[in-house]
């Protein structure tokens, strides 16, 4: 404390060499000069930092990290520009061009985002000081006073509103809200028609020709003569109606004499040709995998398997009912026709099916 040895300075605090003050006795402290002897008063002290400013790594590493991050950000910027360039420059309108465009746009986007992300993480890890701060948790429950205040507010408000005391008011209010709440639900009624009996029938009728689905041409029994043949057929006139096809699509399979047996209804077959519904009785997928060697009809959705020589009985899988068989015959010109509609509802089970 040079002040003391020098004997102090006059006037105090300005730090300049002034005229020397009278010599004081050693040991006596000089007049109080708050700035030099005492600490700075709290309000003038800079607040303690809640976060350090420097990353705490050695400066060389920090500069290197900064350069790496900067390079990554530049890369990201270039990639974003590349994205825009690829969008403007690369046309689509063909599969090959789409492939090129997708590659270019995708790679530039990945690099743009990825470089930005990696740069940000390196920034955090190497250029920010590592901190581990602690903060108190307070119990989540409110204090009893706060709870009491809430309770007061709520009950007094309820009393003031008259809701509690006036029973007529309360009951009629509740009575008013009930139909009001039901009304929007009622508005949904016209979302769709009632099912009625529509699930029980398809459009197949006596005399309706079976068309090979795709070319939509009728099929002669004589043209379907090789054992092991299978094809999908649809009712004539409805080949473009998906609602109809969702129930009426049928598969026909040709068997050699003697292969078909009960419970297949032989009256409903023509020359070893048998017709089954293509709509699976489980949940309605087209059941169409026909295995010639095993006579299995396999549904690819959940693997319900039916035996085509035995009335499409279920031999494995979750389907509970065999595929309905369509009675078929031939018309005067030899084309395959339906003899009637299916004798039971096709497709998945439903409550009213019975």
């Amino acid at each position: 404390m040079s002040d003391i040895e020098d004997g102090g300075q006059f006037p105090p605090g300005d730090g300049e060499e002034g005229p020397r003050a009278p010599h004081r006795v050693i040991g006596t402290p000089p007049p109080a000069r708050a700035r030099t002897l005492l600490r700075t008063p709290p309000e003038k002290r800079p607040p303690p930092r809640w976060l350090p400013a420097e990353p705490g790594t050695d400066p060389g590493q920090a500069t290197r990290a900064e350069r790496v991050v900067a390079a990554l950000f530049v890369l990201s910027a270039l990639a974003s520009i590349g994205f825009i360039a690829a969008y403007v420059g690369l046309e689509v309108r063909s599969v090959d061009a789409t492939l090129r465009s997708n590659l270019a746009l995708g790679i530039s986007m990945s690099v743009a985002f990825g470089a930005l992300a990696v740069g940000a993480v390196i920034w955090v890890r190497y250029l920010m000081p590592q901190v581990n701060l602690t903060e108190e948790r307070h119990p989540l429950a409110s204090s009893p006073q706060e709870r009491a205040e809430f309770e007061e507010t709520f009950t007094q408000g309820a009393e003031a509103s008259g809701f509690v005391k006036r029973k007529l008011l309360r009951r009629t209010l509740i009575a008013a809200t009930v139909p009001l709440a039901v009304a929007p639900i009622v508005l949904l009624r016209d979302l769709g028609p009632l099912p009625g009996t529509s699930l029980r029938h398809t459009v197949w009728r006596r005399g309706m020709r079976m068309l090979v689905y795709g070319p939509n041409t009728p099929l002669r029994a004589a043209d379907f003569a090789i054992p092991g043949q299978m094809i999908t057929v649809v009712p004539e006139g409805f080949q473009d109606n998906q609602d109809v096809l969702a129930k009426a699509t049928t598969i026909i399979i040709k068997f050699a004499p003697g292969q078909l047996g009960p419970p297949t209804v032989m009256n409903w077959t023509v020359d070893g040709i048998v017709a089954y519904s293509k709509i699976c009785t489980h949940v309605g997928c087209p059941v169409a995998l026909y295995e010639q060697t095993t006579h299995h009809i396999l549904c690819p959705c959940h693997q319900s398997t039916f035996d085509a020589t035995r009335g499409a009985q279920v031999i494995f899988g979750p389907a509970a009912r065999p595929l309905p068989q369509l009675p078929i015959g031939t018309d005067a010109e030899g084309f395959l026709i339906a003899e009637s509609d299916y004798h039971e509802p096709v497709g998945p089970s439903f409550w009213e099916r019975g």
Partner: protein
Amino acid sequence: MSGIKPRRRHRAARYAVLLLGLLVIGVAYAAIAGAGGAASAATPGGPSPQDIAQGRAIFAGTCSTCHGMSAQGTGAGPSLIGVGAAAVDFQMSTGRMPGKDFDAEMPRKPVTFTTRQIHQVAAYIASLGGGPAIPSPAQVSPAGADLALGQHIFITNCAQCHNFAGAGGALTQGKSAPALTHSTPTQIYEAMLTGPEAMPVFSDTTVTPAQKRDIIAYVTKVRAEPNPGGFSLGRVGPVTEGLVAFLGGIASLVFIAIWITMKRRAA
């Protein structure tokens, strides 16, 4: 030697070793698995008596053990009377015949005979009982085919076994419908015509030759289409996509999360 140690102890060394191991296994698997079968589909000229005689000789030496000396069939193999040249050409040109491991079905294998020999055997079998003939190039050419109709018929009658892109699918009892990636147009035609093994028959009176051409055109076009969205993941649908989402997406993000939250080592 002193240069190796620091790199060995490098933080990333264990990941590099893991990656190397995975790469080695992956390359080895790819090399071993997925053997294709050669496909042949050259057209025959008209069969001569010498061809039929040659065919008989080959048949007697290779096929008669299971199919009988006059192709009448035995317990081990079905009768070939009336199957036609198309069936023989299909089975032999895909390598399914001569049959080896008698399993649930005959898979495609490397072909044992030359095209000429196959046509000779086919001519011999055709001489025994007729049957569908080998289609001509014009019959299987996709030129001028109606792709839309081909798509329609394929989805209605073929995709349920062979999958929407011809990637194949499972059947019952260990069988499967094969992928159509290596089938030649002729083989596709012959398969539809003759209904090999579990496949149903699609005769020319039900699916006309023109419609068969449309189907072939659609199948060959689709399988040749590039995958504009990236690797196809097998063209089998959402199963492989889900696997990639977990093993590719979540796994990589977990590693990234670990990196982000790692404590920086003391400088």
